[in-house]
């Protein structure tokens, strides 16, 4: 995986101002922002799959995956309210400031997978870290084979990005399947767990890379299904989440066996995950 250091702010957070807030699903909001420093605003470059350490002034710092694509996209963070720091974020308004360190982490290996089919499999808010990569791939459509999205959530209320998914549905060359666990009135899409979509979509396994992101149960079921179909372990990619404090490979809170998720990851192949020495 590519781990060249492109961090603009390593130790001291740089201020950014919230320009717009959007309600997503329950407890999840999207915060659009721009950097205070115009030069940084111009030059801050990321790779899909990376993350930043976001400071909420007066509360603390937390790690958050970058959902925005490196090109042609507005910078934003989509964050669920789960604890002390994220709830402090949720109390902020347009015009408030946050701090950013990063971007950190290795990112998705786009250069290495040109020409392949891309399968995105996501569950619930697991679609957020994959959004960057999907948007990026669609911008470079001709570089890849089939692009397939298999997305599921417990219920329709818990599906992220529904307007965006509607746009994606209409795009030619992007096969999208969306499912919810149990049928509901008003739902016309698929019903059932997300791994059942793999068969429905007739997912290819040669010259193919699958990006998987979601809760552990879903992850195991999806991996099981893909492996059974013959997709090799080093062609299945995921992004791991861990408790993080420094983001730069020093505090070691994110250690799994011999790897540090913030610097060796957060993007790993399933082959690597199997040999980490600890359960994820």
């Amino acid at each position: 995986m590519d781990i060249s250091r492109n961090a603009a702010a390593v130790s001291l957070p740089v201020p950014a101002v919230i320009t717009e807030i959007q309600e997503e699903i329950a407890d999840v909001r999207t915060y659009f922002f721009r950097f205070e420093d115009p030069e940084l605003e111009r030059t801050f470059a990321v790779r899909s799959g990376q993350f930043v350490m976001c400071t909420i002034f007066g509360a603390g710092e937390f790690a958050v995956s970058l959902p925005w694509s490196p090109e042609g996209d507005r910078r934003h963070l989509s964050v669920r309210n789960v604890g002390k720091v994220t709830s402090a974020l949720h109390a902020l308004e347009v015009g408030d400031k946050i701090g950013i360190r990063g971007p950190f982490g290795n990112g998705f290996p786009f250069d290495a997978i040109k020409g392949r089919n891309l399968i995105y499999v996501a569950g619930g808010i697991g679609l957020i870290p994959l959004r960057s990569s999907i948007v990026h791939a669609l911008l470079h459509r001709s570089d890849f084979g089939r692009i397939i999205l298999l997305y599921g959530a417990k219920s329709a209320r818990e599906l992220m990005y529904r307007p965006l998914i509607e746009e994606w549905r209409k795009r030619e060359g992007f096969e999208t399947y969306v499912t919810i666990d149990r049928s509901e009135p008003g739902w016309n899409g698929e019903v059932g767990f997300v791994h059942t979509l793999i068969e429905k979509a007739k997912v290819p396994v040669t010259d193919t890379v699958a990006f998987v992101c979601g809760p552990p149960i879903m992850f195991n079921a999806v991996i099981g299904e893909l492996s059974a179909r013959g997709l090799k372990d080093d062609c299945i990619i995921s992004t791991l989440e861990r408790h993080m404090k420094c983001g730069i490979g020093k505090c070691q809170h994110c250690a799994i066996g011999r790897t540090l998720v913030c610097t060796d990851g957060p993007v790993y192949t399933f082959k690597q995950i199997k040999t980490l020495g600890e359960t994820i």
Partner: protein
Amino acid sequence: MFVLSKADVPRFLAHLAGRYELYGPVLHPESGDTFFDRAADPSAVRLDAPIPTNTPKFTVFPHFERILSYKYDQTTKDVRIIPEELVRPKALVGLRSCDLKGLLCFDRFFLGQEFVDEFYRAHRRKMFLVANTCATPFPQCFCVCTDSGPYAAEGYDVNLTDLGDAYLFETGSDAGRAAAGELGLPAAGPEASRRRDAVVDRSIALFEPRAVENKAWISRAVNRLTTGFVKNETWEYIGQQCFECGACSFVCPSCSCFNIEDVNRVNGTTDRIRTWDSCSFEGYARMAGEHNPRRPVEDRRNKRFFCKLSYSQSKKYLRPGCVGCGRCVRVCPGDIGMANVVTAIRREITGK
């Protein structure tokens, strides 16, 4: 190589005290303990003192420090981020070889890998390191097993060995050579290395049989830890005796895990505080939500010793993580310091 007479030691310390904040082993009168501490008065430094109770790592990695502060005005939305001035010239004297190895592990870890830890670098700059060859090991020492003593082969500006009538003053850097020059020290004679080697050999012979006996087993333990072949029952046996206090990490010269918290002060600024942390704790790796990858205590014991002794950590430090200082043996309420853990792993292999 030079010679520093015993009578000249105060001059050497005064020379350092004139340029740096001086730290060294200081005897604590009330308790009789030796602490590695700031010596405002150079004569308080005792080069002949026993291994300090505390680990010198606090000089580059404080127990509790502010790394930056900020002020965010909710009304004006004005943000000011205020870095901390952390650079203070320090001279560390009387460093045992094990503790010096710990510092070198820190250097490779904090200054190497993908990023430089700027706070560590600030603490580490302008440091003058004077090592002290250990002539007398203590009951819990086992640096001979971990290739970290009793003689420091590298990493110092000056290395002192007590030859009886004087100190052998070896220089390991330009700064060390400059000091020798400024002090006008005489060169050491041809027999000096031989005499130094005799001191080291005598020291090695004084180690507890267990330390020497364990020598072969530490490498076997390293092997089994790296490949993950240690049985879960062994970790459960060890974990049952863990009091989850964190002491092993706090006293270890190569443990560098830390925690960061933002603390709001009554005057409106917020301090970002960095403190020692330990993977011994249940909450250390726990994530928001419920997922905790290392909830059972045996998993955390497994993780810690893997981190200390496995090949992968060795690759980060270019040597095993454990430096054989024995402090974890002294502070552990559950009696599962490094030596006993290695014994437990050994029992798995040999049955005794």
